[in-house]
């Protein structure tokens, strides 16, 4: 679980940018998409999405825009920026290299007795 937590933490920005590269989304929708598409693997404390989103907004990777939603409550939609697209392309390439190298090393290895954490 500790390894999964660390991997998830390191990949949150890439995951969010991947979703936003398809269409602008608001926080709740991003949480649901992450949960559904990963079949629960990337489920995390949902509130932690917001510090990540706001940090990305500060760094210029996404841009927030308030829109009136259903009912009285407004929703903040996040759009990916040009810089965000660039960072996403770099990080996708990095993750793909990382995954290929890792699988090349451990691809056929059998889990030892006791399983993996």
């Amino acid at each position: 679980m500790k390894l999964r937590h660390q991997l998830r933490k390191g990949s949150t920005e890439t995951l969010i940018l991947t979703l936003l590269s398809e269409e602008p989304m608001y926080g709740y929708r991003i949480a649901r998409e992450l949960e559904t598409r990963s079949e629960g693997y990337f489920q995390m404390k949902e509130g932690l999405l917001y510090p990540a989103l706001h940090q990305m907004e500060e760094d210029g990777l996404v841009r927030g825009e308030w829109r009136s939603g259903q009912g009285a409550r407004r929703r903040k939609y996040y759009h990916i920026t040009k810089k965000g697209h660039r960072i996403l392309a770099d990080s996708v390439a990095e993750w793909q290299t990382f995954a290929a190298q890792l699988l090349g090393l451990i691809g056929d290895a059998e889990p030892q007795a006791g399983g993996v954490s």
Partner: protein
Amino acid sequence: MTVLEHYLREFQLALGGCDEATRRNLMEEIAGHIEEHVRALQLAGASEEEAMDETVNRFGAAHEIGGQLRAVHGRPSRREALLAAAPPALMALGSGLSLLFFLSRTGLVLGGSTPAWQAWKPDAGVLGAGMLAVLAVTGLVLVGGALVALLRRLPPWAGPWLSAVAAAGFGALTIAGEDAPPLNNALLELAVGLVVLAWILLPLALTAWRDVRSGLLAGLTMGMILAQMLVTNARALPLERFDVALLVLPLGLFQGALLYLVARADPMRRWAWVLLAVLLNVGAVLVGSAVWRDWRVLQGRPDTGFYFAFLSVCPVIAALAISAARWGWGQWRGRLVAG
């Protein structure tokens, strides 16, 4: 109060370091997320209470998420950092301009009993008024900035303005108090002491309770103003060189630059800039005090250099202590809510 209301209240408290508009937007965004999840769970068959409990549990600890958001938004923008850096530079500019006015009128570098000074003595009143006018304008700008900071509910640049006013006010009070008759009343002395202490501590308490960065900016500024006062005093006996006090100009610029870096740096680098700013303050205080140390010792008075150097560090220590108390308070409240 429902679980949800209690949770949102905790969240609002955790966003204490953010400005009002940011806090309002964050609360709207978070509340929208939570309400939508509660509705979705209720549609799936959960009772209202079950839906609230599940949503709050899945969202995570309010003080933890609020703290992370505060860390993102507590960082001042470039404009705010420049505003935070302005007070020590402004003070130095005021002192330096006032002295330049004096030097340009008198042509004096050496002061005291030199023949040139004797020749200018009759004009001392005019000179004093001119110098005071420059200082008064500086003071008014500082007080105005501090008032705006208070009216805007302590934005990230507020600390240095409040501290500059408190420290400069304390300095002016000390100078005025030198010629005042003794109080001769222990209780009155204690009351005056407490008022002065509250005056000094108030900017630190207001800012450091909100977040550690604001507190550090306020604490460092107090040390900076003290250092400037001692450097401008270095023109006094036994040196009697008025031009020495002009060192306050580069000192103020350095101090302003360091405050800007403290305001803008990420947490790891921030401590390096804080340390450098503290060392600059201590160094300036010791150099400023060294000029008249020999004269004081000759007169049988104690050397106050190290005392002032320690005093310049005290506001930073006080700000850190207040921020630590705030953190402890937040943890305790968080555990209470979780419990």
